[in-house]
């Protein structure tokens, strides 16, 4: 939140008008060249089309928003801002989903107020931000509690949240398991869910390097690519089935992790990050240019689908000597069987990563990773070989990336270097950081938000990346250390002692909240 210099009495009428006028002027200066005219390709060549409704809408919204900010500073007017902001947010949101609404209500068209989707989005977000700020100010004034009391209350809420997290995790697992059979589920929902779970798995894999060992890896997608290509090539040239190729893809990715690890582990911090970034790019460029093996930018197509554990094929007519799935189980043929099978496959793989991670965190190697993140010089003085500990983190993390890559290849049936660009690494890293490094539940939530939301906002076309960015910015503002930044100790003495012997944890011990 910005610092406000105004006197408590609030600005006078003249100052207010002056500020509003200035806002209008700046708005006009920016809007007229940027928004008011659009070039369109017409019969007689390029034509200028005036877009005055958009301009007027923006200017009105701008002045009203500025008015809201001014009133925020004026004591006693917050409730007006809260009401106005909520109305704006509601209008924006309704406009944004006008097609869905119209379909739901069975009317031809929703009477939209804003001229374009982008403006609806801005109106909704702007109104919401104003309303929330006003609400926070109101809440602060009403409560007469001291800062210490507020901290205590926050702490209590944090404790509640932590308890809820485990409940939430169980609910999420149940939801993931039953998803294909829920009433609203259809092919699209399962496809999106498969995509999200793939990123959850990648996030959990990268979490071992970034969240536990504290090494900023900007090239994680390289291991993903190694896994995908090793399955694709093994299937194409050697005819190896998915189930045999899966461990092979993981091992190959792990060895790439070791190959990368040896030279770079002597580097630290920024230098380390840059080298991993370079490694990711090297892999991609090799894939593009090594035409004889990888088929270059054309990619590899016709990658076989996984069979049902060697019992049945997941295609309509069966393949080779395997009968088709629906005949094997005496079901009616449905193209959804394969989609659902793939979905459960990735859920099972992600569950494997989660179980592994939870267990290894409580082992000496897991504690050594975290200790390395905290202070690697102290680690060396305690006889911990930093190189092998870091290499282990790299290899394990890379292996999970390789598994996910093999799954990606078999699901898509086609891979090309385009799927393994830097933006993929960045998204996976964003999921880990936003989730709260080290927290499996947090990472899963972040994956749902960062992968699921852009899918939901697909109506917004290219503006959906704005939604992605806005999500990132909001998390950075409100949860600068990630959604769930609480670190659960890997072992507690309290579990092995009669109750009451240990001192209660100090409030700060929770490590929650912004610093």
């Amino acid at each position, binding site marked *: 939140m910005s610092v406000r210099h105004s006197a408590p009495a609030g600005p006078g009428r003249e100052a207010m008008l002056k500020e509003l006028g200035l806002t209008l002027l700046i708005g006009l200066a920016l809007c007229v060249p940027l928004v008011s005219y659009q070039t369109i390709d017409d019969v007689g060549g390029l034509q200028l089309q005036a877009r005055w409704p958009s301009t007027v809408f923006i200017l009105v919204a701008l002045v009203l928003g500025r008015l809201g900010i001014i009133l925020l500073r004026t004591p006693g007017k917050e409730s007006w801002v809260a009401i106005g902001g909520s109305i704006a947010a509601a209008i924006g949101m309704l406009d944004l989903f006008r097609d869905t609404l119209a379909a739901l209500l069975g009317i031809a068209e929703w009477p939209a107020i804003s001229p374009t989707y982008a403006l609806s989005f801005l109106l909704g977000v702007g109104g919401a931000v104003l309303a929330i700020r006003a609400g926070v100010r109101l809440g602060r004034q009403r409560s007469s509690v001291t800062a210490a009391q507020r901290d205590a209350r926050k702490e209590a809420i944090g404790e509640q949240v932590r308890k809820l997290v485990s409940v939430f995790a169980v609910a999420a697992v149940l939801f993931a398991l039953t998803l294909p059979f829920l009433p609203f589920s259809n092919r699209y929902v399962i496809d999106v869910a498969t995509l999200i779970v793939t990123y959850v798995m990648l996030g959990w894999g990268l979490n071992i390097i970034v969240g536990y060992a504290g090494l900023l890896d900007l090239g994680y997608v390289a291991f993903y690519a190694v896994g995908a290509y090793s399955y694709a090539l093994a299937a194409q040239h050697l005819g190896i089935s998915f189930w045999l190729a899966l461990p092979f893809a993981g091992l190959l990715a792990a060895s790439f992790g070791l190959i990368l690890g040896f030279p770079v582990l002597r580097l630290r911090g920024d230098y380390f990050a840059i080298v991993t970034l370079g490694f990711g790019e090297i892999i991609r460029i090799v894939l593009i240019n090594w035409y004889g093996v990888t088929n270059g930018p054309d990619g590899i197509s016709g990658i076989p689908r996984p069979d049902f554990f060697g019992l049945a094929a997941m295609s309509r007519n069966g393949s080779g000597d395997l009968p088709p799935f629906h005949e094997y189980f005496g079901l009616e043929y449905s193209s959804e069987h394969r989609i659902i099978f793939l979905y459960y496959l990735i859920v099972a793989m992600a569950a494997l990563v989660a179980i*592994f991670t939870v*267990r*290894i965190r*409580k*082992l*000496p*190697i897991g*504690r*050594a990773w*975290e*200790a390395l993140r*905290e*202070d690697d*010089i*102290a*680690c*060396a*003085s*305690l*006889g*911990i*070989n*930093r190189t092998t500990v870091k290499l282990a983190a790299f290899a394990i993390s890379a292996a999970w990336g390789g598994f996910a890559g093999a799954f990606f290849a078999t699901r898509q049936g086609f891979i090309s270097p385009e799927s393994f660009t830097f933006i993929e690494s960045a998204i996976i890293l964003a999921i880990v950081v936003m989730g709260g490094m080290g927290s499996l539940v947090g990472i899963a939530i972040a994956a749902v938000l960062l992968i699921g939301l852009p899918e939901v906002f697909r109506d917004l076309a290219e503006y959906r990346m704005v939604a992605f960015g806005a999500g990132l910015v909001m998390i950075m503002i409100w949860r600068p250390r990630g959604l769930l930044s609480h*670190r659960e*100790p*890997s*072992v*507690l*003495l*309290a579990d*092995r002692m009669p109750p009451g*012997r*240990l*001192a209660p*944890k*100090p409030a*700060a*011990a929770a*490590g929650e909240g912004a610093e």
Partner: protein
Amino acid sequence: MKRPLLTVEHLTMRFGGLTAVDDVSFSAWDGEITAIIGPNGAGKTTVFNCLTGFYQPTVGRLALDHPTRGRFLLERLEAYRIGRDARVARTFQNIRLFPRMTVLENLLVAQHTNLMRASWYSVAGLLGLANYRHAEEAAIEKARHYMELANLVEVADWQAGNLPYGAQRRLEIIRAMCSDPALLCLDEPAAGLNPRESGQLNDLLLLLRQEKGIGVLLIEHDMSVVMRISDHVIVLDYGKKISDGTPEEVQNDPRVIAAYLGEEEVA
């Protein structure tokens, strides 16, 4: 006379043109506290960094005779092997704990080598085999023993970074102890402590020497600590050893007085 635990011979450390430690030789014995004192910049911490492998000495031999594991030449070992094999543990002038981990976790990380072996490099641990579970119980028991010595049991599940300063110092010392050292190097353990905390620290150090019989090497500015608990004092000034002996001998050594208080004008 018994063989010293640590024998430092002609240790010299040069950084470019600066000679931080100049031809220093000394010994330290089991069950004794050897203090290294000297004015600021005398090269005390540099000696420690050479001993624990963070610096490679320019010249000199650093031999550690472990009572059971044999002889190690520290100048040839990497830092982690000095901790793991030669069993030299240290603390740092500016405390280096694992601040977001709990007190107990800090003490378990110190037992990494043993636990790692017991978990068969994580395989037994992942499978949850009994032998690893027993090893972990034993490690926690050992950690609890040291926490009792250092009066830290009550805060075992606190994050180390939230402890009061004096408790952090004590935790760093018992964390070093958990790695089963033959020689414990303490770099200014009393720095920044109030008189009560530094009293607690003295008690802890005397207890450790008495019970565990290990050698302690101590850098300290606080003379009340040095004179009360050390058996043997080495004085450095400008990288050179200027005095070596019992606390009384050193206290009365004119060269030491000159180094600390300045030379008397000779008329």
